């Protein structure tokens, strides 16, 4: 019992120690770039509870989450289709390989030209960076579907679209989720980067603006808020993943690599 409580508390020890250490060091240090902890906390409360939530946090989150949704909505079907059909895959591979190698921020100037300084250019840049892990993992997931499962469905005359929906999609979902998790972090990064150029609000804009006006504690509050945001988004994601992929956990725990080694007759 005490052991369990210990394990629950264990992850909290290091963050508390770091905060305490920083607090003890920063108050007497009076460093311009590393302001005292109470000052940062004070600014954080003033700015983010809840003054600029509506003007900066909500627009940033809305951009990021809608771009993330677009990345999933495009990446999963395209990836599955490419994985399912060898013809499509062969035809599209060079283009995919080229586009995924492009660093998305390099297209910010282009996006500004085409979409202007509003949300469009930011969505474009985030999607362009976040879509690849989802698309490529969906592709690999679809290719890795067990042939027996597909043969089974084919022998029962299950139509092609239903095989894609009820076999390929769930079978690939562990890989899809791995890709979505990577993309979540990329989407957060690109949200900040895209807001640092030609923006009038948003978290990235706020951090850069604070730094430019030498408002160092304010700048730190923005950075800390981004950290908390990333942490929370990841935690929520993991909860959803656990719910959706419960069967995958059960199967992989029960059966390490047994099924694969069983020889099948020619």
């Amino acid at each position, binding site marked *: 019992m005490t052991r369990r409580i210990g394990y629950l508390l264990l992850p909290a020890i290091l963050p508390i120690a770091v905060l305490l250490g920083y607090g003890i060091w920063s108050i007497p240090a009076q460093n311009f770039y590393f302001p005292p902890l109470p000052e940062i906390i004070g600014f954080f409360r003033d700015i983010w509870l809840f003054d600029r939530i509506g003007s900066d946090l909500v627009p940033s989150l809305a951009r990021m989450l809608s771009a993330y949704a677009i990345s999933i909505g495009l990446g999963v079907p395209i990836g599955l289709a490419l994985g399912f059909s060898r013809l499509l895959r062969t035809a599209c591979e060079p283009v995919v390989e080229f586009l995924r190698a492009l660093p998305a921020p390099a297209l910010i100037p282009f996006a500004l030209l085409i979409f202007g300084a509003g949300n469009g250019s930011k969505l474009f840049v985030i999607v362009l960076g976040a879509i690849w892990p989802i698309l490529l993992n969906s592709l690999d997931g679809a290719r890795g579907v*067990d042939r*027996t*499962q597909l*043969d*089974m*469905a*084919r*022998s*029962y*005359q*299950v*139509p092609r679209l*239903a095989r894609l929906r*009820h*076999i390929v999609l*769930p079978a690939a*979902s562990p890989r899809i989720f791995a890709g979505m998790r990577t993309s979540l972090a990329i989407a957060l990064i690109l949200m900040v980067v895209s807001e640092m150029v030609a923006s009038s609000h948003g978290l990235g804009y706020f951090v850069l603006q604070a730094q430019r006006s030498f408002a160092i504690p304010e700048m730190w509050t923005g950075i800390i808020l981004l950290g908390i945001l990333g942490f929370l988004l990841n935690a929520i994601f993991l909860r959803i993943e656990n719910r959706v992929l419960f*069967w*995958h956990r*059960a*199967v992989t725990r*029960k*059966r390490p690599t*047994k*099924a694969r080694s*069983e*020889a*099948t*007759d*020619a």
Partner: protein
Amino acid sequence: MLDVSQLRKVYGPDPNAPPAVADLSFTVAEQEFVCILGSSGCGKSTMLRCLSGLDSPTAGEVRLRDRRVTKPPEEMAFVFQDYSRSLLPWMKVRRNVSFPLRYKGVGNRAADDATEEALDAVGLAGKGDLYPWQLSGGMQQRVAIARALAYKPRVLLMDEPFASVDAQTRTGLEDLLLDVWQRYEITVLFVTHDIDEAIYLADRVLVLRAPAQIRHSTTVPLARPRDQLTTKQQPEFGQLRAELFNALDAQPAPA
């Protein structure tokens, strides 16, 4: 009802490459239980894939009730060797069984009834809400059999279905299969490499040699219903075992 004539299957683009199935011909009668016996690598699985319409033969043809098989026919169900790979782990047992029915054009009601009936027939009534991975290996293969039965096929093709379960479970599954074979009045083509299993189950045993060709054919005169103890103690059982053992063991024909 099932006619296989001059079936030949060569993998790859070269038609002169060594075939996996060569000039295979046999017929299976309505409601007959036929076992195909062959050592591993003799082309049994390739043959089954051609019979089931999953693969198309290079030459020859398969006819099911006088219709040529070119794609998986509706009157046929296939039970794979590896239940852990043919069942879908993200679906509950009930959904696994009813999944193919939703595309067969039977109504929801009829599909549900057929599902429950099949689960009941294989002794899994009440397990419908579990996931396959919550069941033992033998029970999982029974789910696969239930899925095949619920599909109401006329022919059941089985590819070494009991090869990955332990001996105890296996005899139970054999008796279960004989029971549902009679209850559902279906034709069964059962591939195995186990001589005793073939004799115990079949009306007729065909021995295959590589590349898949009939080497030997024998009818099993043992009375039904069969029993794991008394049937296997009959002198005919021993004679058949020796006969089939020799047929399997004979040197393969030069290629």
